[in-house]
């Protein structure tokens, strides 16, 4: 049985539960483990990049919405210095979001070479 991010089994996500005031936003959010499982399905179907995306997503599923939005903003062209990107990467490492941290460090390197840092 698939569970939501909150831990609630998906078959308990019902209209009755909503009526009883027993459904919160995390009850309708995907669990990181589900994304990891979807990653292996993608891998089995000839798309390792999609799998990698789901694994990055599994890491981001732990982060609050506003933090995800803020990191996206930081990655846009000429929004961040190399140090700022490294700070984010370190923070992500700390949270175990190592794939995202690597992505950001890779971005920082290329941004340096292509004049896309702040």
């Amino acid at each position, binding site marked *: 049985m*698939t*569970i*939501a*991010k909150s831990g609630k089994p*998906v078959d308990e*996500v*019902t*209209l009755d539960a*909503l*009526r009883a005031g027993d*459904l*919160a*936003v995390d009850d*309708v*959010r*995907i*669990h990181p483990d*589900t*994304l990891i*499982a*979807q990653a292996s*399905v*993608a891998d089995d*179907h*000839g*798309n*390792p*990049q*999609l*799998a*990698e*995306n*789901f694994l*990055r*997503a*599994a*890491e*981001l*599923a732990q*982060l609050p*919405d506003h933090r*995800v*939005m803020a*990191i*996206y*903003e930081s*990655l*846009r*062209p000429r929004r961040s210095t190399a140090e700022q990107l490294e700070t984010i990467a370190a923070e992500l490492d700390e949270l175990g979001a190592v794939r*995202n941290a690597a*992505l*950001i460090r*890779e*971005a920082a390197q*290329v*941004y340096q070479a*292509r004049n*896309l840092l702040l």
Partner: protein
Amino acid sequence: MTERSPIGRFRFMDEQRVNLDGFAVENPSLGLIAFNSPTDPQPSLVIVDGHVIEMDSRAAEDFDILDSFISTHGIDLAVSKEAMALDSITFARMIVDPNIPRTEVVRLAGGMTPAKLAQAIAQLRPAELVIAMTKCRARRTPSNQAHVTNRSDDPLLLAADAATAAAFGFREIETTVPVLGDAPSNAVAVSIGAAVGSPGILIQCSVEEAIELDLGMRGLVSYAETVSLYGTEQIFIDGDDTPWSKAFLTSAYASRGIKMRVTSGGGAEALMGSAEGCSMFYLEARCVALARAIGSQGVQNGGIDSASVAGSVPGGVRSLMAENLMVMLRNLEACTGNDALMSESDVRRTSRTHPIFIGGSDFICSGFGSIQRYDNMFGPSQWNSEDIDDFLAMQRDWGVDGGLRTASEPEVERLRRRAVEAVRDVYGLLGLAEFTDAWLDEAVDAAGSKDVPAADFMVPLTASRLIRDTNVTMLDVIGALDECGYEVEAERLLAMLHARVEGDYLQTAAIFTEEMSVLSLVTDPNDYSGPGTGYVPTRARQLEIDTIRQQRSVDDLRSEQDGFVTDRLAVLGAAGPASDPRDVVIGVSPATAKAIWRTLSGLTVVDALEELLAGLEEEGCLGRIVRINDTIDLGLIGLKAARLAGSGIGIGLQAKGTALIHRRDLTPLANLELYSVAPSLTRESYRAMGINAGRHAKGATPEPGRNPYSDEAIEARYHTTVVSLVAMEREICDPAAYPESMSLTEAHT
């Protein structure tokens, strides 16, 4: 100096709509070239110690941001040696060879650089592209996407139109806004409307990337599509993103269980003035490789907003389809353009779509404008609400599943009513807005927003502000629907949130059936391997395709005819020859006044007879009506009538309206005058024929009557009816039956 005016033939040609389109001379330096620009790079891939040090003739130290991301993430280095060693024509043949499975072609494409894959696909001719698409798309079952928008962001009209789009079979609905602030209200209204129309409709609200992500996180939309990629670094940066920010965004969507695809399209770089001398197709090859590299499950491409730029150069329309195929070969969901209108000409736009339509794709249109052209806030689409019946007819003509189905008028009216009431009730309960009854009534009936004068433009803006400020999520919308008595719709929207938790619809090319099963590369993989394989519509689906609302059976026509029964035409008894030289016989066909009462022109048989008789009378002749019961052949009917007539002149009249003048000494097919275009005949035509028959009776040689030919497709309009009417004549015709005299009495007053 006076300018010479072109001759009439060219003045006439110049007036045609196709000449409103722009056609460009190929110009590689501006990127105005579809395939194979002289400055497109030669394919290459050099790998040292697992790192790409050269790709497509560019050394790693010169890589731009696209090269950099693609070479690091986008190419399967384990197969690249084998893949890059294949010559392009060999791989092109593998793409279309039904004996080589899709999975094998896809595996090899995974190891190819953008230039390599572009070079191979560029070799495919149009018919080969169709076969390739049939074989290589990800999902077995084709589908289609609708645009639902309007000029005023009217939530009621959006809901009614979303319900309508769902009724017509669209499985994804994309909305957008003329006013950015209206986005949340649009997302809610379209979600509610779609849920009224059908379970499992995916909803998108196309706005700026960060705002769109926010809508997704609140559960107000269920997929994202307008995540744009561009083929040159300059335009990419102008778009305020990098491959890394896009990769992060892609994962952000997945992290919330939201389906997402990216958007690109040939011609965009040329349009924005930075194509770097490359062909549209090569630049698009970079976009598609990047889409795969960042982990997007799919791509919307095929020109999209720049489709008309591609359409302006030689081979451009072919390149649009080739772009779509490239997406399929990268093992991604293909949302195959046919979106922004690329031509003023109905012929050209149909020509542009048709190969994709018959080949089949994950989404034939990445935005069929299911609403009025003027209401389409993406701009007019390649296909619009006025084309829905055409599209359904095309599906039926070719027996092809283009994703649409017919919908009955009463059902659509019911859905539209329920959709506007649901939005009114939910907005009311959540304190977002109030609506007048007049507004509701207008929105239900409206063909477009011009028909909704009662709409208040401030409502969506205020509602959107409240949705944001009070943090309304889809759970709140579902709760409100339920509380207002829309339990079915509440369940449908909750099922969409379930799907988010399950995550199966994140896989490539996922849509939901009406039973909420996911159809995707994983659950419904395309297994085409030649004739007799691949997607075949189920019997039920084939019936949907075949059964359009306009079709008519013989029974339908019979009951239509029954509406025109009259007692003015009555049988007197057996008919015999007469000797009066003024006697002209009007022979009518066997079904006259038995099953057929109205001619194809809309005149009744009685109308036609009245005029024929009056025309004869003008010439001093006596008309006599005789039903010829033993033949349905008009020549024979006329000839038999002539042989009964004292004058030797007869008129033959089929109940469907076709008429001729005959003379007793002629052969059946050699008549004197024939009015063959029955649908265009008028009272005046029959009067003129009566007069001419009278003149023939008197031995004169009148000027023959002329058929009223026109430029209308008379045969398309009437031939199906003719087949049925002839069948009715044949059913009644009795080879042993004698002719009968008939009387025509005056109209009752």
